[in-house]
């Protein structure tokens, strides 16, 4: 059995970890974009997170990960027999490889069925497999344009419509899009960037001591994964419990009017485009509050999520060297002291 690197053993990268936890608490939030150099533990963190989430219940044998209480499946879920039971499965974690073809992503004709029985049957693609889970795209800025368009469409509508090869299939595909990329290797199209609720920037740890610690831990994991995972089991379990607790509490977290007003003022001050920014601020702040102890979202929660919720939505002035994060920090300071 392969062991995954434990989430709690990741050194530093606090903002990325916080963004991923927020996304785990509120699956409706809509994705995290992680910018950063190669080898900063982006993939490791995302993979590790999916291991921490409580299993979901799906209709047994359903290739679309349909929830039992939402049955019947909205689509010809061909592999499901009438009286299918349900079973618990780990939260789906699907890698979208760079070179993936359209067929692989949306699904295509089931060759086996077509050849052996002459029946047209739909073979679900990666989008179907990612339903209710995570769709992870490494190097999302290098993805082919036509695949990006396709993803955008599905991410907005929450369902995938396939009309090809004489097939006509419509199935739910709601997933958390987790992207990673290195801005040095090509910018991301703004339309796609806007789809991600949160964006974080990770950098190579500057302190030598941190790097040494990363190498030591990874080396220990390489040599004896089982012992290493066991060593971090309790810490990981604690994170898992806090996610589960925050999920239960999420709906009860109140958002006071003054916090909402603060968010609105912040967005207008920064000229962040659209309402999506405000909505994300509110949702992410609430999820953060749920992870903490309080009963309602505070200005502090808002300030903590503002950089990751707004950083990628600011209209950029190419001649202004000031980073988005610095602009957000400045605006926040002005508003909070006022």
């Amino acid at each position: 059995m392969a062991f995954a690197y434990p989430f709690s053993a990741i050194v530093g990268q606090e903002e990325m970890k916080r963004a991923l936890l927020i996304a785990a608490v509120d699956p409706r939030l809509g994705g995290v974009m992680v910018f950063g150099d190669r080898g900063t533990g982006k993939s490791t963190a995302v993979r590790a997170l999916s291991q921490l989430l409580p299993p979901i219940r799906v209709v047994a044998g359903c290739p679309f990960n349909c929830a039992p209480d939402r049955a019947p499946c909205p689509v010809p879920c061909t592999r499901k027999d009438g009286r299918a039971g349900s079973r618990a499965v780990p939260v789906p974690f699907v890698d979208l490889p760079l070179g993936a073809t359209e067929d692989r992503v949306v699904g295509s004709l089931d060759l086996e069925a077509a050849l052996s029985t002459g029946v047209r049957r739909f073979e679900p693609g990666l989008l179907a497999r990612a339903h209710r889970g995570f769709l992870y795209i490494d190097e999302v800025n290098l993805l082919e344009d036509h695949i990006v368009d396709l993803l955008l469409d599905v991410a907005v509508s929450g369902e995938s419509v396939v009309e090809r090869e004489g097939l006509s299939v419509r199935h739910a595909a709601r997933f958390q899009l987790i992207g990673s990329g290195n801005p040095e290797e090509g910018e991301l199209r703004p339309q796609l960037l806007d789809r991600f609720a949160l964006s974080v920037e990770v950098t190579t740890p500057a302190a030598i001591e941190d790097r040494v610690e990363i190498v030591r831990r990874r080396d220990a994991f390489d040599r004896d994964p089982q012992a290493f995972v066991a060593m971090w089991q309790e810490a990981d379990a604690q994170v898992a419990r806090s996610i589960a607790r925050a999920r239960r509490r999420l709906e009860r977290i109140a958002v006071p009017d003054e916090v909402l007003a603060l968010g609105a003022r912040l967005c207008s001050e920064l000229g962040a485009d659209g309402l999506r920014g405000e909505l994300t601020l509110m949702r992410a702040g609430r999820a953060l509050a749920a992870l903490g102890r309080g009963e309602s979202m505070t200005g502090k929660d808002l300030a903590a999520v503002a950089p990751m919720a707004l950083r990628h939505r600011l209209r950029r002035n190419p001649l202004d060297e000031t980073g988005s994060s610095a602009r957000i920090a400045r605006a926040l300071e002005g508003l909070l002291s006022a």
Partner: protein
Amino acid sequence: MTAADQRWADALAAARLLQTLPFALGGAHVRARPGPQRDAWLAALRTGLGGATPVCRAPAGAGADALLGGLDLAATLASGRPAFGEGLLKAADGGVLLLPMAERLAPDGAAVLAAVLDQGRLPAGPAGGHPVRLLVIALDEGADDERLSPLLSARLALLLDLEGVRPGPAGVAATSAAVSAEAAAGALCRASAALGLDSPRWPLHALRCARALAAADARPLNEGDLALAVRLVLAPRAICAPAAAGPAEPAPPPSPEPAGGAPRPESDGPGAGSLAELLVESARAVLPPGLEPEAAAPTRGAAGGAGRSRGALQRAGGRGRPAGTQARPPRAGERLALVETLKAAAPWQAVRRREQPPAPGAQDRFRVLRGDLRTQRRRRPAEMTSIFLVDASGSAAVARLAEAKGAVELLLTRAYARRDEVALVAFRGTRAEVLLPPTRSLARARRALADLPGGGGTPIAHALETAHLLGLGCRARGRSPTIILLTDGRANVARTAGVDPMDDAEAAARAIAAAGLRAILIDVAPRPRAEGPRLARALGARHVALPRVEAGRVVAAVEAGA
């Protein structure tokens, strides 16, 4: 021992190490053209591999299909049942996968390999989830701007450069002191930092390599293992030359220290620091030539890490090459993807035969309908590269440079929609310098532009020659270059002494015109003068007089000319 001999000895040591199948290392990225060195190295590798170890050779430019195995068209048609070919990855499981012409590896192939090396199993697909362990030996024959995908290269611990080595007998390894794993991790991190490698990925690869070396000889880790690991993993990737050791160390600049941070022996005991220094010294002989010490390259110190490598140049690994297929009939000028079309049609043959039986006596044919047609997608050929050639000489340089910088960034912000690239060459004193190789990345451009020096002579001829070469390079990659020259046209430095600088500049300009490279001359002379139009005529370029350069108007001129 000379540097070339040392590299060969190290390469042989790497071959011996790979023979022990250290799967944790991922494999080796081998830079070498086909030739006696490479053959000798491959022979050394093969002889030590047992007969039972699979060694698979991938076809050049292998894509995901070839690696993972897919529908075997011939077998499927013959049997009427889907038959899947065994992919190269499965065939190479437990052994070695050789990738010749690795720089031509299709992007999807590189992505698949990277994922497999990361996760140790096949991605979802016909044989999804099957555990796979293999070493990838990527034989990279690329020159300059065509290199193995950084995605894959980053997963291969060893990097060997066999260009210019001289095959000879292997050296004898000296015995050395044992090292604890804790000390090794610290020393390798410091050695990486000294070579400008900030990502923890590299010291980790080096530690794995050192461990594998020790394990191959079944003895504890020693300093010799670490030194060899540094030469095989870290040194060939070095971004800056390590500061000179000893008391002759140059004083650090007054500016804030680069975030990478130089090794600081005092931070945790004298042992780790001095071991790191020892390792760096042992690697000094095999460092790539032309590295600058970190102090001389302040803009590179802060961000970057592994991703700094070559940026946009390596994107998608080539131009005008196939980039997947689309399910639609080809339009004018497009090509039919025959195999994909047949694959799409194959499963339907039984159904179609049943629904529309062939006329009695007529021969039954393979039936392809309109819906089966697949079109080969290719990269758009008309991608532009704007080469800015900026006069940084004289008194007006500072303002002019600031606006040129603005124009470059403005163009870049539009680049993601249009897939354009921008390059920047500045000239002053006696030479022109490529400050920004063609890129689409705003982040990279900002860093390169951060501090442009100004003042000095005006070597227009050399600048034009530099732009000429850049332009030809862009064209060879299938892009269409435009040279944008910002100057007042008053050349006063020639390429060779004794030649009239103006004549020399005109000769260089005519060479550009003869090569058919498009150019625009933006004349920034405060009052109209003869030199600007004269140079524009020689270039065959449009002459735009902009006495006060403004970023917005430069961009407008470029876009009108495009």
